[in-house]
């Protein structure tokens, strides 16, 4: 047991580990971990800030890059794990967005007449303000 621990620590202090930790092969995927962590941090926030186009694009992107990470030489399992996590996080954000947009009662359209079937519709969204913010 003790020799296992000491061998483990010795392998962590070895030159290969130090070379790996200094390589772009390590720091590239570390930078990419920012994306799933950002998505996980955004899970607590208002679903208003979710951009549907960006979320769908990120889903496809992570799907393809999961394969890319395993096909590139040398194989990059850290990158694979990062994109797996990102795929899960982006799919969750997409579900939250769809729920937020279409999950509740939909506001009545202009052509609809109030009736028993749309009696519980939400109030219409506020119109865009007349004075949009101007740059300084």
């Amino acid at each position, binding site marked *: 047991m003790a020799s296992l621990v000491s061998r483990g620590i010795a392998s962590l202090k070895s030159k290969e580990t130090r070379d790996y930790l200094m390589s*772009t*092969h390590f*720091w*590239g995927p570390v*930078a*990419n971990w*920012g*994306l799933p*962590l*950002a*998505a996980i*941090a*955004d899970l607590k*926030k208002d679903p*208003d*800030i*979710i*951009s549907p*186009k*960006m979320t*769908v*694009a*990120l889903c*496809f*992107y992570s799907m*393809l*890059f999961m*394969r*890319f990470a395993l*096909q*590139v*030489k040398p194989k990059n399992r850290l990158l694979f794990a990062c994109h797996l996590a990102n795929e899960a996080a982006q799919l969750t954000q997409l579900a939250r967005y769809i729920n937020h947009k279409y999950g509740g009662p939909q506001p009545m359209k202009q052509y609809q007449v109030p009736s028993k079937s749309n009696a519980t519709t939400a109030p219409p969204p506020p119109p865009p303000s007349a004075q949009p*913010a101007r*740059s*300084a």
Partner: protein
Amino acid sequence: MFLLSDLYRVAINVGDRALSPGMKKIVKWDHPAGMKYIHFWAPLMKWSLVGAGFSDMLRPANKLSLNQSISLFATGAIWSRYSMVIVPKNYMLFAVNIFLAFVGAQQLARIAHYRYTHPEVASTTKN
């Protein structure tokens, strides 16, 4: 779903048989980062991120996510170096990450500007 990969494989086989060697040289058909391999298609997909980020310019600045902008910028910057170091060298990946870094920086600038011009929002947001 698997029909698409079969279609793709058929298209590649047709290309292998139909293209002349001269044509293959021009389009770099057999390049290790060419159309036959994931090294080409994955970075091509990443352009959709650049496009989505660019189309987010139409969204009001208070609806942008700061976390996502920071991580897009950082990933674009670091990956543009990484793409020149992996085997095979991937110029498509390099180009797309340069643009992604610019798009991320642009989103960050919009968020910063919005918070600068709306101090009441800047003081109430937790992030």
